[in-house]
């Protein structure tokens, strides 16, 4: 059984991080260059970590499967990044951001981690502004803010609807600077396919060059995974097509525990599905909820009527009705489930009945069309490209879609997994968002981990490792891991079945969406737990992967990733089945209040479930880390 020590420092909440930083072990500056650190992934967390560690003098090797670090999917985040700057003088503070995040996560996050996140949020904005990130400004030249889903203060910084892009390009510029200076060795088109564990410590990775097909061993003193989330297990999501769980999944199979895999976020405002060929769901930024009003017809029979012909009296602005104090700005899980309930009642709009209206007519009356265009023009353009409809003239149709995964590899306060030497940052870890993430918090966490946490905490581990003690790539463990990768590649290419990889991915996605999506039940999850292994068995018997392993082979890449999703999906259902309560994004229909809100069971489930791999076809072990709420009271989350 894995040892899960959260290593949260003692003392008052607000002093923990400050004190920890002064007590942490340091690596002598002259010794730093003797340590090699592998960073996998170059989104916000990975780029920020690779750049910052190289600045400190460590030798860093950074691996990305993209052709450039600038392509990582952090780039697609639209809305903004939270920081407790209180530039608006509206009562914000580190404590309030901490409290909102803890509450938003439905009391399933680790208090100390979240407080640290809120503390360093202010440094992130400073850092990014200094890098030249062109944040939105007021006419006085100072930074502009807006309020964002689930917050009652204006603490969100933004760069039009492209905040993730600008923050990632900032981190990419810092990384590029260190690549140019020789501090980071960058490996593009390089996919990590296994983790190498020597004497219980993570000491290297196995990488396939996606262009040449060559498989190489890389050793290091520490390995950092910043490879993002696993929402593509649902096939249709707002993730990039290439986003995958392979790095964290293969680390799991080497012994790293997987925390709360069932916590997934379904974002309320996405463009509905249009057909079976669909490869991707497009998000419409949550910021639209600041000015748009969400409604469905009061009467079922009006659901196919032209929305502009439905009189005001026949519209149900259901979020404003059910949640009068937060209205259209209530948290994502709450808004998504409400949309589902409306559609379940038969009042969903569009041909499929899986949609609700997001209406800007009041905003246009108030601000004029040009005012709305200034705020949301690019989003209205995206909507028009995809649907051929103008949201200036008719309400947008939106529906929830998979957007983020709060679960991920288990880490302690230092962001180190239960495997010493393996650190996990950003969306790839489980730590800060509990069972639900608030809007504009993902960018904050990725950059917090990369710029302001790992540069301190990695030294705590490295100081205990003798310089130059990293094992050679000729070690047996490296050979075995490489053999593992080669064998899997060979096996995938040799099945020569009849179905392309995409068909299995779609079928898995349908199972996951149906049974492990917005609402989950015991019988549904039990059914999924029969269907997924059967699908996996069929995959390994009947998948068709054309081409060879010695060139660029996108089918082979996808096959490996889908093979992992077929295992991870099962773990997610298992976790969802075991967690007999509802919390945040995890909604078990058996556990709800009369009004349909989440009914938590703090007594039995006030803990993190950290799953430990036990081998193929053996049930994994469910370890727990109790969540001790010392400073906040676990209460019923209410947005009414």
């Amino acid at each position, binding site marked *: 059984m894995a040892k899960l020590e959260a290593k949260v420092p003692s003392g008052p909440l607000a002093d923990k991080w400050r004190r920890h930083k002064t007590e942490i072990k340091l690596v002598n500056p002259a010794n730093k260059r003797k340590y090699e650190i592998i960073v996998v992934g170059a989104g916000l967390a990975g780029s920020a970590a690779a750049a910052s560690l190289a600045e400190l003098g460590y030798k860093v090797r950074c691996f990305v499967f993209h052709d450039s670090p600038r392509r990582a999917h952090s780039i697609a985040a639209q809305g903004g990044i939270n920081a407790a700057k209180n530039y608006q003088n509206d009562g914000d503070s580190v404590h309030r951001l901490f409290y909102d995040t803890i509450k938003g996560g439905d009391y399933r996050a680790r208090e100390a981690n979240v407080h640290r996140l809120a503390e360093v949020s202010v440094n992130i904005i400073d850092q990014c502004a200094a890098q030249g990130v062109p944040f939105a400004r007021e006419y006085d030249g100072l930074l502009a803010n807006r309020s964002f889903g689930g917050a009652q203060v204006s603490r969100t910084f933004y760069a039009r609807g492209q905040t993730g892009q600008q923050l990632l390009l900032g981190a990419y510029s810092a990384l590029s600077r260190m690549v140019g200076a020789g501090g980071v060795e960058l490996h593009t088109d390089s996919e990590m396919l296994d983790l190498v564990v020597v004497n219980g410590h993570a000491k290297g990775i196995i990488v396939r060059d996606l262009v040449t097909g060559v498989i190489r061993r890389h050793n290091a003193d520490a390995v950092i995974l910043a490879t993002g989330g696993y929402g593509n297990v649902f096939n249709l999501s707002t993730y990039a097509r290439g986003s995958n769980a392979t790095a964290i999944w293969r680390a799991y199979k080497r012994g790293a525990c997987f925390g709360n895999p069932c916590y997934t976020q379904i974002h309320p405002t996405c463009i509905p599905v249009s057909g079976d060929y669909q490869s991707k769901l497009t998000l419409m930024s949550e910021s639209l909820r600041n000015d748009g009003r969400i409604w469905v017809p009061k009467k079922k029979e009006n659901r196919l009527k032209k929305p502009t012909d439905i009189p005001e009296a026949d519209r149900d602005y259901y979020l404003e009705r059910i949640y009068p104090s937060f209205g259209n700005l209530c948290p994502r899980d709450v808004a998504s489930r409400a949309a589902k309930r409306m559609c379940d009642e038969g009042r969903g709009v569009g*041909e499929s009945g899986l949609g609700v209206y997001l209406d800007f007519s009041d905003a246009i009356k108030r601000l004029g069309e040009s005012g709305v265009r200034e705020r949301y023009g690019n989003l209205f353009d995206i909507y028009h490209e995809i649907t051929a409809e103008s949201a200036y003239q008719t309400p947008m149709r939106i529906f929830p879609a998979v957007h983020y995964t709060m679960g991920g590899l288990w880490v302690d306060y230092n962001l180190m997994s239960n495997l010493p030497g393996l650190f996990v940052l950003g969306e790839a870890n489980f730590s800060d968002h509990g069972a639900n993430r608030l809007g504009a918090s993902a960018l904050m966490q990725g950059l917090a981990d990369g710029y302001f946490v790992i540069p301190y905490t990695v030294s705590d581990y490295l100081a205990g490792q003798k310089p130059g003690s990293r094992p050679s790539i000729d070690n047996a463990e490296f050979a075995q891991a490489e053999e593992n990768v080669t064998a899997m590649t060979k096996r995938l290419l040799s099945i020569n079945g009849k179905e392309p990889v995409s068909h299995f991915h779609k079928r898995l996605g349908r199972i996951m969406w149906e049974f492990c999506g917005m609402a989950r039940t015991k019988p549904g999850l039990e059914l999924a737990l029969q269907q997924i292994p059967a699908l996996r068995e069929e995959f390994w018997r009947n998948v068709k992967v054309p081409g060879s392993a010695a060139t*660029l082979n996108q089918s082979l890449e996808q096959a490996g990733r889908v093979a992992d999703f077929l295992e991870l999906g099962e773990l997610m259902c298992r976790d969802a089945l075991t967690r007999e309560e509802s919390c945040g994004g995890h909604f078990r229909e058996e556990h709800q209040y009369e009004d349909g809100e989440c009914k938590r069971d703090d007594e039995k489930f006030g803990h993190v479930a950290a799953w430990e791999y036990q081998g193929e076809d053996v049930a994994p072990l469910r370890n727990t880390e109790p969540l001790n709420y010392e400073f906040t009271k676990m209460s019923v989350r209410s947005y009414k």
Partner: protein
Amino acid sequence: MVSERSSKEFFAVTLRVWRQAGPSASGRFVDYPATNVSPDMSFLELLDVVNDGLTVKDEEPIAFAHDCREGICGTCSCTINGKPHGPGHGIATCQLYMRSFKDGDTIIVEPFRARAFPLVKDLVTDRSAFDRIQQAGGFISVRTGAAPDANSIPVPKDDADLAMDAATCIGCGACVAACKNASAMLFVAAKVSHLGLMPQGQPERDKRVLAMVQAMDEAGFGNCTNQYECSAVCPKLITHDFIARMNRDYVKALFKAKFKPVSSASGGAG
């Protein structure tokens, strides 16, 4: 999930696609008929469907670069009917929908062609030259942790907005593919202008433009002859005015370097 608008009429097109097994292999166009094309399908989704068909027939699928499929990562890179990113305006290939085409169309699909973007396979090219230009100077040198309070450096709103117009570049390389000289001036100018417009970018402004232009020339991109095909195909509609701005910065920087340019190359002057 259920189809949203199944009643739309389906149609048929022929994809004429550049196939090339590797950098040193010879390439050719191959026709692939596609039926049951929905107008609501994206162009890349049609490629997915065609590729699944090829896979089942035991033929190798068409390699094409793609990732976010929402026009922001800059990975997708097809020249469609002779125009980088196809017939749309201000969009990347992934944002092109089949409603832009009609029944019976033959659609010609090629990779982004430029000497500095060597071909990898089929429609995939190597655009790492862009990364090398960024590594030469596309940054503000600020160490993590060394930043002053963000509001201690006010930025006039107009400057911030103009900087954002430039910073919106997704690094796709369409500008290069469209240019008859395969020049990267719009790409480099966008980065130089973004950072040069911000007060934070002033200390390194001269050094940056000289280094980035030098790296651009070394990567084998051509010179600019002011045809502006770059801005015409840019998915983010970045204006060629930034090229003029970069040229001014470049000349000023050369001048200040006491007539001793860091590179003997003439690149950069438009």
